Structure formats: structure tokens, C-alpha cells
């Protein structure tokens, strides 16, 4: 429809581009769904949608935190390391039971988030450098704590990974609740407004008397906590703690989801629904290529094309 409008009425070109920017990611998801329903055998089944949703849930959860950080004109590269840390700490403390182990995980994640936030907000280190330090250090710490993969047999943890309520897996429910919570925070709370104001212009926010440092620190702590949730869920699903490979390149998947979802890297704006759709888009793309047994290198190329398209669509926004 957008293309038809583009051809017949040239004046509407700007409007079409705008439409593409706002709804492009949803159109992409819809398109992939339709294509798959037509060409992929056994695609239209509850089992399949469940699989896709369960696989994408950790990515969505990490991307939510990433979207908040990017909203402040920052970036958090340490999320994958925090997932690994969460995995090894879970394994280390599971002997006390699931809930105590999760509390310790939260403690560790909050520690990483605090370190990130302090470096960015108090010391004034660039976010990309500060979180890079924690990305390297965090995974190192995870490996010191648990040098190799360990199988976990805790039944509560297992049910967290594979159990469901009325047929909907816990993973999906948790991701959905967190997405709603984050969306609400961004749109309807003072904290959300402050976050966006800082992303728009930190000096202006500072002059306006906003608690810039506090907000920044809280944002990085939230991002680390969300990554830890994703790490625990992924570990629960695998029923094994694997700090060497868990969360590898997760920071890039999360940034991709956020950018494809229409959140600009320049801060000041956060699109949560778009972020979720962005993660789903990449998941469907990967699933399509895997199901049709195309070489893995194609997946990377396809992802690159999607990112370039998203960045192209976002380019117009800066001008207006």
C-alpha cells in the first residue's frame, strides 16, 4: 500500500517514508509470517510459535534494558557477560535453593550495573568504554567462579525453564510482563521522562536540575538486572550452566533489536513495542533460514540487510 501511494502521488513520498519508519518493523514481521505460512511446512502450529517465542524471550528481555540505556544516549556492552555471570552464580549457589541463588545473582548483577553506572555517571567514562571493561571483566569473573559447564538438576529451576501456565511457558509470560513494565515506566513515570530528557541533552537536563547521575546509575543497574533475568532463564531452559558460551554476542543481538525497532542511537527516544518487534523479526528471519537449511552465513547477511534498511529508515528522522 505504501508503494502504491508512492507511485501515484509523489507528494505523499515523505508520508510513505514516515509510515515505513514507524511501522516498517511490524510490516517486516507480518511479511515474514505470511511468507513462512506459505512456504514453510508445519509453520502454522502452536508448537512452532511456542518454540519461536521461547527462543526469543531472553533476547527481548536483554533488549528492553538495552533500549533504556540507548535512550540515555549510552550503550551497554556488558549484557552478555552479565548473562554468563548469572549462569555461573546460579550454579554456585543453587545448593541453598532456587530463591536464595536468585537473590545472590541479583546482587552480582546489581554490582555490575552499579560499576557501569558509576563509571558513566560519576567518573565520566564513555558508556562504550565503561561497559566494554565490564564485558571483559564480567565474563572473566564468571569463568573464575565456574570454569566449566555444569549440569543442574534443581526441579524448580527446570520448571522455570520448561513449565507453563495454561499452555503459555513461563519464559514468555516473564518477557511479556517485563516488556509492559518497561513500556509503562518509559511512558508514564517521572523516571521515564527524566531518562529521555538526559538522552536528549545531558547538559540541559543537568541545568534543569534533574537527578542525572542517579537516573543514569539506575538505568545501568536495571539493564544488568534484566540481563541477569535472561541469563537465569536461558540457564533454566538448558538445565546447565555454561558460562563459556552463554550470552556470547548477546549485546549485538540486543542492540540490533533496539535499532531495528526504531529507537535512535542518539538517545532521547525509546520505542519498546518496536524493540520487541525487532527481536521477533530477527528471530523469525533466523528461523526461516534454518528451517530451509540455508548456510549459516546467509543468516548473517540477511541480518546485515535488515539493519541497513532500519538505519536507512531512521536516517530521515534526524532531518525533521
Amino acid at each position, binding site marked *: 500500500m505504501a508503494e502504491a501511494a508512492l507511485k501515484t502521488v509523489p507528494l505523499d513520498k515523505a508520508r510513505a517514508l514516515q509510515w515505513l519508519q514507524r511501522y516498517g518493523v511490524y510490516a517486516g514481521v507480518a511479511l515474514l509470517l505470511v511468507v513462512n505460512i506459505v512456504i514453510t511446512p508445519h509453520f502454522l502450529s502452536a508448537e512452532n510459535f511456542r518454540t519461536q517465542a521461547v527462543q526469543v524471550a531472553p533476547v527481548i528481555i536483554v533488549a528492553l534494558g538495552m533500549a533504556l540505556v540507548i535512550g540515555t544516549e549510552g550503550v551497554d556492552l556488558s549484557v552478555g557477560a552479565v548473562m554468563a555471570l548469572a549462569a555461573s552464580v546460579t550454579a*554456585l549457589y*543453587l545448593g541453598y535453593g532456587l530463591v536464595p541463588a536468585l537473590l545472590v545473582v541479583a546482587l552480582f548483577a546489581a554490582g555490575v550495573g552499579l560499576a557501569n553506572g558509576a563509571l558513566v555517571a560519576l*567518573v*565520566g567514562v564513555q558508556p562504550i568504554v565503561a561497559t566494554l571493561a565490564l564485558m571483559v571483566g564480567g565474563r572473566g*569473573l564468571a569463568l573464575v567462579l565456574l570454569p566449566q559447564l555444569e549440569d543442574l538438576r534443581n526441579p524448580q529451576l527446570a520448571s522455570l525453564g520448561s513449565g507453563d501456565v495454561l499452555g503459555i511457558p513461563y519464559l514468555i509470560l516473564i518477557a511479556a510482563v517485563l516488556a509492559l513494565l518497561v513500556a509503562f515506566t518509559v511512558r508514564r513515570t517521572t523516571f521515564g521522562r527524566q531518562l529521555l530528557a538526559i538522552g536528549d541533552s545531558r547538559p540541559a537536563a*543537568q*541545568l534543569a536540575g534533574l537527578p542525572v547521575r542517579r537516573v543514569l546509575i539506575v538505568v545501568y543497574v536495571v539493564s544488568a538486572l534484566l540481563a541477569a533475568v535472561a541469563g537465569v532463564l536461558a540457564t533454566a531452559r*538448558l538445565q546447565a550452566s555454561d558460562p563459556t558460551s552463554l550470552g556470547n554476542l548477546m549485546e549485538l543481538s540486543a542492540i540490533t533489536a533496539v535499532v531495528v525497532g526504531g529507537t535512535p542511537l542518539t538517545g532521547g527516544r525509546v520505542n519498546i513495542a518496536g524493540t520487541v518487534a525487532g527481536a521477533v523479526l530477527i528471530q523469525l528471519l533466523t528461523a526461516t533460514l534454518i528451517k530451509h537449511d540455508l548456510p*549459516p552465513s546467509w543468516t548473517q547477511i540477511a541480518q546485515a540487510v535488515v539493519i541497513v534498511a532500519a538505519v536507512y529508515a531512521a536516517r530521515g528522522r534526524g532531518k525533521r
Partner: protein
Amino acid sequence: MRVLQAPQFPFSVTRIGVTMQRTTHRSLLLARPVLVALAAAVALTATSCAKSEDDAADGKKSTAAADAGQKVAEPKPGSKTCTIDAYGGEKIDLKDATVGFSQSEKEANPFRIAETQSIKDEAARRGVKLLTANAQSQFSKQISDVQDLLAKGADLLVIAPLNSDGWDPVLQAAAAKKVPIVTIDRKINATACKDYVSFIASDFVEQGRRAADQMIEATGGKGEVAILLGSAGNNVTTERTKGFKERVAEKAPGLKVVFEQTGDFTREKGQQVTEQLIQSKPGIKGIYAENDEMGLGAVAALKGAGKKAGDVKIVTVDGTRNAVQGVVDGWISGVIESNPRFGPLAFQTLDDFTQGKEVAQDIIIQDGAYDDGNAEQDLGKAY
């Protein structure tokens, strides 16, 4: 909070920058020692009061318990050999020698753990003085590791190379001191019996062929099977794939490979890819996983999809304890071993060589296999 921050703001715009910069500088100076101390404290406290699931139970399994040493596969007739006269150097008694061992990767996976342990055990058994180094997956570190070992007085070297290329500086240094080198599990690109003595390893193509045999037996030679590939661009991946496909094409034309996707040698990727696979190809009869971890990921995916043990036949390569346990439980049909216990064979080769006997340039190890016939009694041999 706002009251606390008030002193930060009574400046004009131009001065804010200056103040912020100054604070930055000061806190950075403070931050470093504080951070280091903090990290150390965290690592210490975290481990001191940790309690994992296994602590209460029987404790960790000991890898050293049942050490199944390696056997050499029968040498091919006419294969090249090497002697100390051809190589240059002097005869020494291994008992009085110092052996240097350079490990490539961190001992974070069962293969590397068992490999290093086996070298250490054999050195202790023979009463040989052993120096060890670990390159932590960094090639530049491995080069300096080996140079260090030479400087510390190693008379003989056992190297598990991270890469095949780039060994010239080390080889020159070793040649200058006439130190014989044995490489294990990966080859280095150099001339045998001139730059190094022998290369000891498994035949990965043969592992693929034997995995195919197991798959043919498990599936009856008919139906569709999938391959979970290892990391792209890795010789282990290409060789294990090649052997498998060759043997299937030759012995069981009824068996079709319909799906080949990478699981990056990790359990998580193995699980995710298998989940996609069993959705889109519900009729799949077998999965060949090029290492145990991906195979265990496939098992997790099948369990999650409500399948029963044996519904889909899984064959893996490596022989780790978890996978062999999977055979005992019925989820995995067969495991082809890739034997990491190089110790006895490496030291035997060095012993023969330093006494002036002939040793083969390429020594191929014989790998074992586990299926439902022997998995239970041989579980102790798995690493």
C-alpha cells in the same frame, strides 16, 4: 538527593565542563585500586560461601580414576619414521630430562582438562620433571610460553598447538638448542623429522566415518538425518562432516542428509537449532552431532518437545562422561570417542626417540566407541 547535588550546579554553563573534568580526573585515580580490591574481594567471598548442588553429594567425579590410555592404530605400511640421528641431537635418558608441555586452550572443557591431566599423570608415573604452560587461547602467548619453557631448560617439548601456522620463531629457537618436539591433537605446518619429531592425533575423518556406521546401524540405513555442524572454518568440523557423508553415500544410499546447520560446538546452539529442526521436519530419524555438547543440546530439545528416548537416534563424537551417560539412559545411540589422553603415547614416543629407536612421524590414535552394549561398563573410561 537534589540537595546533595546542589553544589554541582551553581556554575555557569562554561564552568560546568571544567568542574566535571576535574572530578573525573580525581576519581579515576582513586577508582583503579578500589576496583581491583573490590574485584578480588568479590571473587574471594563468592567462592568461599558458595554451595553448589554437588557439594553435599558424592563430590566431583575424578578424571584420573579410570585412565584409559591411548593405543596406536596400526601404522600404515611404508609410513615415514624418524630417528634421532636423522633429526640431530643427542641421546638422553628420559628419566633425567625435563619435559615442557604447552597447552593451547584454557582447561575449561573436558577434553583439555583430561589432556593436561593425562600429561601430568604420565610424567609423575615416569618420574620425569614436567614444566607446564597454558596459552589461554592466545597464540602470541603460546609462542612466548614455549620460548619460556626453552629458557627454563626444557630438554624435550610436547605442544598442543592452537594454530597450525606461525611457529617459525619457536622452531628456530628449539632447533638451536636441539630440543625434540612432539605435537599433539593439531599439526603444525613444518617439516616432520626436521622441525619436529612426531605428530600424535586422532583421525577426524575416520571419526566421521565411524559415526556414520553407528547412524546406519541405529536407523537401519533408511530415512532422513540431520547434521549439527561444529564452528565454521574449523578443520575438525570439515573433516568430521566429510567422513560422515562419504560413508553414508557409500554404504547407505537410503539415508538422506536433509539438514546441516551449525551449533557452534555449544549446547545452547545445539538445543536451539534442534528445536527448529524438529518443528520443520517432524519425520527426522537421526541427528549426527559433531561434538557431545551439541548432542546433549539436541537431547534437551527433544525432551522439551515431549519426545521419548530413542524416538530420534543421536550419534555424537567426543566421549565425555555426560554423553556416555546419555547412551546409558537411552537418549543417545552412540558416541565415537576422540581420545584426549595423550600422556602415555607422547612420553613413549619421546622415550623411544631419545633412546635412538625409530618413531613414526604421524601417529594416529585408535579411538574407542560407546553404544548400548558397552556404555554402562565403560562409563568410567569417559572423560
